[in-house]
């Protein structure tokens, strides 16, 4: 706490809950986008892979 005061920072525990919520939304968002891309690539690999054979 002393260090925080010396650095002119304010310990702000009230930010924890909204920050956790943002983290949850952010990680879900990233996984959602990545999963959609994964599924698309998997389908594309299957479809175009067959064509090339």
């Amino acid at each position, binding site marked *: 706490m002393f260090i925080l005061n010396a650095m002119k*920072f304010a310990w702000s525990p009230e*930010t924890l809950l909204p*920050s956790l919520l943002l983290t949850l939304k952010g990680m879900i*968002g990233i996984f959602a986008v990545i999963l959609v*891309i994964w599924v698309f690539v998997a389908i594309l690999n299957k479809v175009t892979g067959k064509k090339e054979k």
Partner: protein
Amino acid sequence: MEQFVELFSNVANFTWQQLLMIAIGAALIYLAIKKEMEPTLLLPMGFGAILVNLPFVNTEAIETLFNAGIATELFPLLLFIGIGAMIDFGPLLSNPKMFLFGAAAQFGIFFTFIMARLIGFTLQDAGSIAIIGAADGPTSIYLANYFKSNYQGPIMVAAYSYMALVPIIQPPVIKLLTSKKERCIRMPYSPGAVSGTTRVLFPIFVTVVSGTIAPKSAELIGFLMFGNLIRECGVLGSLSETAQKSLANLVTLLLGISVAFKMKAELFITAETLAIIALGLVAFIFDTAGGVLFAKFLNLFLKNKINPMIGAAGISAFPMASRVVHKLGQQEDNQNFLLMHAAGANVSGQIASVIAGGLMITLIEAML
């Protein structure tokens, strides 16, 4: 004689803060040349830091460059065209489950956001600082500038310095979280064939999906994927080469010295800078931990186990992270070849970090 003395009168105008910044600039140049740490950026930044901290120096030209290239977000976006043209997504497209590790290894960004908020940074500054964990310089610059953060200088220095320090930061974290047995897990590499159609449609699809779900990331991901489309389309070889070499080099050259505009002593020598440097390290550590722990979690359900070190390659620092993982694997078992798996996770991290940046903007704006 008096006139001669007058020539040197400006020496007395140096403040200790300016001298410290000049020492920091010299240290950056030393690291760039002697240690080859991100020399393309640390050297111009170091030189710029020396230049802007001379007493009564005229920095109009650097300010103009900053306003033209960074305040407008042009430099990071143009650099992304070059980076996109350099990246071969082949290892990822042939082994698409590696996509997951790119997502998991963004955890450090959000963990750092929580920490930054807890010690009192504003939402915008916390978001800008957290994105150091994207391990992706242009994204860090883009966000810090988007949020008009007062800490653009320290954020950019931290982002590029830690990227160069990946080979030092990651191994202890990986070793701490994995057993020797886990690090020895072999993963045979049997990639599926990737068609030209997949390679061409991939950048277009990623742009559409990412831009739709996280519109704020559309520009960043769009420029990255545009560069990749030029590379993969097969009819723009000359443009691809220009993007990879001339464009990337030119922008990098100007980017480093433009960033130095925010490295003036009065903006940089603050307690907050120390906190930002520390938070940047936290971001990289928890990115690595997020990726490794996610791989261990997946292993609970998988018959063919994944070497959990692959998770650490999910951070965007390309290609350092994949090399670190491969090297660690070889240290434990010299017949273990993890490079291609790690490269897949690594390029996935490149995409995921940009998506994380876009989501961070969207989520923070919703809270304002």
